[in-house]
């Protein structure tokens, strides 16, 4: 199947600064993708470029085999047949819910529009809210209406700009899951922009981590966490520390925790000094273990404790431990390694 969206080597300027450079990716029909990165990394600029609000200096964007943006010309946003959901909902405050949802329906068949509005409202579980005004809805309800409005014209592509970040924590996770199920159900193709990895994990099939206007890695959320391609991705996605390590041979690596075995990439050379990524879930608590580390700090997370441990050398590691294992600071904690993915980076 050919990709529905092709972003090829685009470059944009925002307020006279290069905001996006050499960015490329492709989306297949029905993919839920995510652009993840810290604020100012250019992720929203990419979204605006796809929507048609941002000129390209270089590269091109192709939707359904039609070039919609290039330095030579642009199809205006209103002719692209894609929809957008915003952080603030951007509902038209002077229109009722049903009129908001009907805003993108251009056919003159009133009855048909009415039916679509009804369908959309039931999709987002707001049936009966037709005559309400935006200010009468809660934040979560507003975002559902915004989503219904965006989906009503059956767009070829749905763009979402931090749609959950104005909601409280409990709501954003449940709504994220709900939106994912709905979009999967109707087979929509979507790009979500967020700075929050949790949004990316719950929502997307594929995600791109952006930094300084470039995509560092485009992959599944699982691989972003477990097989980060760059040190920035490793840092940005998930917790973890880097330990001094050295490559022993093609499948062995020495670190001060232990000599670890696993598949190493082909360019691994014996004797190379590297930095090994150790995630908190790589360090398992085991009272029986002979290996111990002293507890320096602990953070209560409800279902677990995140312990900061000091190794004899003075380096620190993190360990995620179920919270009924409540140990005091200064105590020695028995630990065991469960490092499935050997991820290392060369010294900078």
């Amino acid at each position, binding site marked *: 199947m050919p990709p529905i969206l092709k972003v090829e080597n685009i470059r*944009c*300027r*925002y*307020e006279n600064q290069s905001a996006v450079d050499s960015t490329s990716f492709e989306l297949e029909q029905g993919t839920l993708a995510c652009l993840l990165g810290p604020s100012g990394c250019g992720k929203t600029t990419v979204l*605006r470029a796809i*929507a*048609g*609000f*941002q*000129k390209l200096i270089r590269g091109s964007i192709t939707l359904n085999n039609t070039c919609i943006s290039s330095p030579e010309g*642009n199809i*205006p*946003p*209103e*002719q*692209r*047949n*894609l*929809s*957008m959901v*915003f*952080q*603030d909902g*951007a509902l*038209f*405050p*002077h229109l009722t819910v049903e009129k908001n949802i009907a*805003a*993108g329906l*251009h056919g003159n068949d009133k009855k048909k529009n009415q039916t679509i509005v009804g369908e959309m409202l039931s999709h987002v579980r707001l049936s009966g809210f037709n005559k309400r005004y935006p200010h009468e809805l809660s934040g979560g309800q507003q975002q559902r209406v*915004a989503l219904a*409005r*965006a989906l009503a*014209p059956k*767009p070829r592509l749905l*763009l979402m*700009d931090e749609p959950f970040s104005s909601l409280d924590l409990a709501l954003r996770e449940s709504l994220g899951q709900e939106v994912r199920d709905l979009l999967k159900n109707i087979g929509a193709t979507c790009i979500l922009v967020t700075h929050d990895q949790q949004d990316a994990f719950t929502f997307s099939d594929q995600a791109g981590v952006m930094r300084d206007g470039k995509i560092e890695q485009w992959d599944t959320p699982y691989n972003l966490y477990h097989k980060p391609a760059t040190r920035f991705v490793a840092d940005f996605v998930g917790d973890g520390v880097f330990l001094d390590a050295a490559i022993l041979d093609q499948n062995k690596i020495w670190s001060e925790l232990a000599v670890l075995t696993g598949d190493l990439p082909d360019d691994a050379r014996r004797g190379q000094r590297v930095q090994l990524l150790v995630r908190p879930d790589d360090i398992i608590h085991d009272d029986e273990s002979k290996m111990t580390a002293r507890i320096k700090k602990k953070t209560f997370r409800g279902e677990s404790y995140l312990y900061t441990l000091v190794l004899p050398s003075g380096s620190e590691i993190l360990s995620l431990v179920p919270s009924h294992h409540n140990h005091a600071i200064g105590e020695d904690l028995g630990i065991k390694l469960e490092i499935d993915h050997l991820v290392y980076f060369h010294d900078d």
Partner: protein
Amino acid sequence: MTDTNSSLGSSAAAWRIGTTGIALIAMLPVLAIVWLALFPSENIWPHLVSTVLPRYLSNTVILMVGVGISVFLIGVSTAYLVSTYVFPGQQYFAWLLILPLAVPAYVIAYLYTDLLEFAGPVQTMIRGLFGWELARDYWFPNVRSMGGAIILMGLVLYPYVYLMARASFLEQSPHLLDVSRLMGRSQFNTFLFVSLPIARPGIAIGIALALMETLNDFGTVDYFAIHTLTAGIFDVWLNMNNLGGAAQIAIVMLTFVLLLIGLEYIGRKRIGFYQSVGRFTRIEKIQLTGLAKWAAFMVCFVPVLAGFFIPVGMLINYGITYFEQSWTEQFREYALNSLSVSIIAAICCIVIAVFVSYAKRIEGNAWLGSASKLASMGYAVPGAVLAVGVIIPLAVFDNAVDGFFRAQFGVSTGLILSGTTFALILTYVIRFLAISIGSIESSFSKISTSIDMAARTLGHPPFRTLRRYHLPLIKSGIFTAALIVFVDCMKELPATLLLRPFNFETLATHVYLFAADEMIEQSALGALFIVLCGLIPVIVLSKTISSSQVLVRQPN
């Protein structure tokens, strides 16, 4: 809020060209003045410098310094009292104090002359009381003097300072004042060394606006025979029939304008640093007792009484007494003239302001930003100066067309633009465009740009987005802007006097002409009409003030 690079689409050029055109037209008068001042057909500059100009200049400076001091004293003292103390009527004074803004300076000048002249009721009463008969029996100040002009203009222009100062005092962090008191400063010392310096940027803006009005005034200085620069433009243009000379005086006035714009600009720039951004609990007001409370009452009561109730009372009185002589066919014609040119100008201002603001919003580049600023420059240019600047290019155009038709067809087309209401409305639009652009831009800025993007991605082109999703949201901003422009056009005197077509009078010129003939009683109805129109935006303004008053009272 900037939407850089967001143009896209074929209509982009139209917005850009339109806005540039509007900015050029708005700048045209000033450019024309500079051009004609440098290359007049008959250069009288040396003559002006050696004869009348020094007097025009010194009178203007004295008047502006005087009005500046009087608006500062009245505006700051009243603002400080109502925002700091509790005394009889204090909550009413908060909005009563802005009422004089509705009275044009020339109206109050005519009325007080009538009231205080030798044959007027006040002097007659004094003579009766003391048994005097002749003017040399006693001393009484002459209203028609520089001092009179300064006091009367101060009485109607102080609300600019009052409004800005009051806002500054209310927005100051109470913690600052507490700190000052704890460090041993008395209440009054705290005002002098803490509150007042912090309010300085706001006060500077208020004074700049009041002085722009002073520079603009013609009715008062003409009636009082004070030869200021504005009066000079009239004299050189109408009596000496030398437009080039008028343009040269206009250039001198424009330097004053630049100074005032500079003062206002500095104020606006600093206001952000000086005033607290956060929402503090409002300052708790101090209850005044005994003599102090009545002194405070008088300080606030006198400006309202003298600047509003006395003149309006006189107007109502004359309006009723002389109703039969005032309510004539002519009067209705003048009123209709006033209404129609003001409404047309207000509509033009709104349409242009919506166009310029929306162009800036969807294009958002630096050039459109400066173009909309250039288009707003007219507000600081005095009406008489603007009239000179408008007539120069229009006369060139009319003469060219006339010459062409005479040569080709042997008919004279006359003054197509410069001798018609077109020139008048164009001048109004240029002068008051800033008000509408300011109001509409601030309404637009309250709409999130994601609304635009939502509408566009839902398939609505820019113009339909504006019509369906923006206009309903900025309705009240449009209404306010239209109202203020309308009222300012109704009041406008100097440009109207200079540019009105032959046999075309408005209420303002009608009042001026009658008052000049010492027949203020017969034109009181017209003046009353102007004041009542002027009251509408003042009431709108006072509503917002009294609602903020509720906030102030909450802590107790």
